[in-house]
């Protein structure tokens, strides 16, 4: 049998093969505000893993705990319960020196820009450069180029008082980026920006992620910048409700669309299907399904390849070979008959599997395509 995991297919955990150390690893994290009678839980048993170079967008209604989680990761709040590892360091129970050291490796872009009123834009950004001991010449070049890129070239030596809200926000962004942090945490970084500057900011983020391996976690309600996300984390009432790798989900959807029965499904439904799939792993030579067994799962090959063997009474005959993106196991689910073939992994492989009930439900949904369209049109109003 294959080893079935509890990891959802859309988590992206198996994209890209060998796992790199996680930049952020949140386990069973709880957080409370207030004392005694007034103590109120803000975060409930949250788990989250963010890999190096990933851009994560956290969304959710206000009061759902996004900013609380962000500030906990940013060491701006003391971890109370659970485990929180940032850049390889456990924050729960960490001493002040360690916290100060970790802070220097991070760039935090605050919702309130918190610029020093007494310093110019340049000096404000320089406060971050000085802290990490950046060479003044290099720092000067970086500060000037960052501010210029953010459209503040003509405002470099202005004090915050003579800058607009959006300009102040951009100075704060430059301050968060100037020291090339390994992890950038941003709370609504584009909220005060027009579309063009907002785009420039996320492009900068993408460059840092791609070129420097910088990890970026941002809380935002700005749906104009959702496209840069590698992962979208949705929080509701202090819990992570969904944690989806955008790229992986899109790959799964592309694969699923190849399946004729799913061809009519909207992207929305396809994404929901992808969400319900679980990861399975198999070693080389391992049988995934056997001819004659009852069918309970539909498989999609994420990586690797399999042989399809049919026993016609004279022994197993190889009838086909299936590769990445192809699927098997659907016939038994549709016809409610036993498996009509044996599938054996040719190499270590990863599959995404969908349960029988979910599979059938999707087929039902397919019939309600028109209904879904009506819903979509209705919501447009």
């Amino acid at each position, binding site marked *: 049998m294959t080893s079935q995991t509890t990891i959802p297919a859309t988590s992206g955990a198996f994209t890209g093969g060998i796992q790199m150390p996680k930049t952020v690893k949140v386990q069973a994290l709880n957080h409370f505000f207030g004392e005694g009678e007034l103590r109120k839980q803000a975060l409930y048993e949250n788990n989250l893993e963010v890999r190096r170079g990933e851009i994560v967008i956290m969304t959710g209604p206000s009061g759902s705990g996004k900013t609380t989680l962000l500030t906990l990761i*940013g060491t701006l709040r003391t971890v109370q319960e659970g485990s929180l590892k940032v850049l390889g360091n456990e924050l729960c129970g960490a001493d*002040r020196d360690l916290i*100060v*050291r970790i*802070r220097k490796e991070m760039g935090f872009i605050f919702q309130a820009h918190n610029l*020093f009123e*007494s310093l110019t834009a340049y000096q404000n950004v320089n406060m971050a450069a000085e802290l*990490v001991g950046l060479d003044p010449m290099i720092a000067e070049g970086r500060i000037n180029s960052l501010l210029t890129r953010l459209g503040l070239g003509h405002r470099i030596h202005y004090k915050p008082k003579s800058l607009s809200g959006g300009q102040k926000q951009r100075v704060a962004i430059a301050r968060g980026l100037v020291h090339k942090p390994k992890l950038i945490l941003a709370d609504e970084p584009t909220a005060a920006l027009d579309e063009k500057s907002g785009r420039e900011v996320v492009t900068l983020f993408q460059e840092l992620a791609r070129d420097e391996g910088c990890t970026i976690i941002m809380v935002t309600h700005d749906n104009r910048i959702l496209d840069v996300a590698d992962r979208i984390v949705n929080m509701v009432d202090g819990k992570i409700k969904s944690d989806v790798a955008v790229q992986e989900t899109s790959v799964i959807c592309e694969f699923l669309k190849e399946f004729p029965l799913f061809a009519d499904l909207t992207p929305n439904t396809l994404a929901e299907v992808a969400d319900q799939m679980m990861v399975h792993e198999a070693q080389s030579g391992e049988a995934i399904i056997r001819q004659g067994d009852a069918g309970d799962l539909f498989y999609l090959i994420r990586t690797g390849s399999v042989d399809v063997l049919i026993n016609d009474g004279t022994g197993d005959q190889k009838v086909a070979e299936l590769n990445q993106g192809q699927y098997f196991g659907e016939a038994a689910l549709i016809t409610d008959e036993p498996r009509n073939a044996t599938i054996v992994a040719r190499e270590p492989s990863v599959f995404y599997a969908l349960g029988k009930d979910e599979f059938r439900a999707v087929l039902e949904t397919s019939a309600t395509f028109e209904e879904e369209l009506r819903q979509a049109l209705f919501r447009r109003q």
Partner: protein
Amino acid sequence: MKTPLAWKNLVHNKVRTSIGVAGVSFAVILIFMQLGFLGGIIHTATQIYDALEFDLMLRSPAYLHLTEARSFPRSRVLQAASLSEVAEARSFYLGLSEWQAPASVPAVESAKTSEAIEEEGDWRAIITMGTDPKDPVFNRQEINDEARKLSDSTFVLVDVKSKSEYGPADDEKFSETDIGVETTLGPHRVRIVGLFELGTGMASNGACLTNPEGYVRACPWQTIDDVNFGLIKLKDPSEAELVRQKLLSIYGIPSRDEKSTFSLTAAALTNTDVEILTRQQALDREEHRWVHETPLGQIFTLGVWVALFVGVAIVYQVLSTDIANMMGEYATLKAMGYGAKYLTKVVLLQAVLLAVVGYIPSIIVSWGLYRLVEKLSGMPMNMTPGIAALVLALAITMCVLSGLAALRKLYQADPADLF
């Protein structure tokens, strides 16, 4: 070069900084005034001693302070003079008498009728000193020179520092135009023959100098054989303690433990009529007496403490408001990874700058107030380098402590709670 954040913060918000500077200045002026008053007391206590030439002092065991000196037999001074180590042993008379402000018209004309005397001014208590004009006791040449004019018991010299209520001709201070003026000192008429400058104090606002006979005329309750002080000058001042021991044995006083220096009961126990002090002992005791035992001294000592507490309260209020206003910015620094050391440095530097900037106008204003108080009340107020340095140190300490107290919140709270 690092960004001078503390300085930038102070310069940037001029209104807030001005309020801070005003608050610090107010506290500093308060402390300056109280220290000035206390300094005035100390000065009162020792300014006459400072002007006298002596290495050892003889005085009555019942001595309280300068103007309550009590007296002892003059023979003790003569006994001391017999010692070979003694260069000079002089008698000095000092007590409070009554002075009537002279008439504003020249005495020579007004003295013609007895009514004219009735028209003279109010009576005031005055420090009256008596010294031998042939061998004056002062260590200032200009006073000694004037003292030689006191050849008659009706002649007096007047301290130019005496207040205007003592009746100088110009209603301001005694000057050359007052020489020759007659007035009444105690029960008798005297004539002003000269001036000297010594300074008065808390005990009395005026002083005059006469010869021993003149002193006894002014203070008739004392005879010429009862002196207030015996001032002994030694050939070698370093022998003071040795001579003191010798004198004790001559006078038959058992040598007592130095620790009981301030005990007034010692004299009663030994039943002697004189005590012997070195110059330093005399100055120390006089200062102690005025600062710690007179109500005035106690009031002003307390005043210094009250001013300190009020000063700390004001400075704390000013600084903690200042820091509270910038809490978001400091929390941001903390969030960026600036350590407690840097934050402390910035806030304390800001506090010290505020203290120094607040100190400069205060010392100028205080100096002016010292002059004003001196003019109005006659209390000698001196801005000594000691007081100036002490207040600067106090101002910086107050600011630093207040800054640290205000920083506690920043140390303890999570940055996220401070934005």
